[in-house]
């Protein structure tokens, strides 16, 4: 594919509702990352997938957050019972593999607004 894609680009939801965000990584990229970026802030790591290994969930802020990935393709990030503090841009990135030298390719992000 041309790059990492994410959908939806924008999501407005009411407090308490569940949301699902999707990420399509670059074909052939085995590593996939989810980050959260609040307005004017840096990148907050959420979760990391590498191939078929167990994901590194150490960055998930609460048990309301979960993510899945099917093999080395699409990933979904689910936020249950959304809260206003969940409002942020959620960025997905993929890279070639499990090596510190690989750069990350970021998607355009999903802007989540919880009202």
């Amino acid at each position, binding site marked *: 594919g041309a790059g990492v894609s994410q959908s939806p680009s924008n999501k407005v939801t009411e407090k308490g509702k569940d949301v699902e965000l999707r990420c399509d990584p670059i074909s052939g990229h085995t*590593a996939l*990352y989810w*980050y959260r970026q609040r307005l*004017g*802030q*840096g*990148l907050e*790591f959420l979760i*990391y997938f*590498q191939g078929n290994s167990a994901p*590194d969930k*150490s*960055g998930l802020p609460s048990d309301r957050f979960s993510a899945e990935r099917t093999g080395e393709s699409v990933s979904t990030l689910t936020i249950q019972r959304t809260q206003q503090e969940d409002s942020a841009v959620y*960025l997905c*990135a993929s890279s070639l593999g*499990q*090596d*510190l*030298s690989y*750069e*990350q*390719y*970021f*998607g*355009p*992000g999903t802007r989540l607004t919880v009202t």
Partner: protein
Amino acid sequence: GQQVMQIPQYQHVQEGEDFTTYCNSSTTLSNIQWYKQRPGGHPVFLIQLVKSGEVKKQKRLTFQFGEAKKNSSLHITATQTTDVGTYFCALLTSGGSYIPTFGRGTSLIVHP
């Protein structure tokens, strides 16, 4: 855990002035990456530094990796309005973690 400090948080310059952002780590790094995020955009990879004391140039951008591999800098000569954005460093250490630690970023504002 690994600590990273990136300074300054914001920098206003007149077009044509130089700009530098610094990234400092509490631990020795394996390598460091730099990304640029334009306003409203997503981070885009600029460069990676691996060797102690390494210096790399991309046109008006100069990237340096400290001798002790604990700090790095990005210097832009004669800024242009197209340089506007937030510059992030991403630190990577050996030892099992494949998750980079991003700095908070330095936002560059260039006044024409």
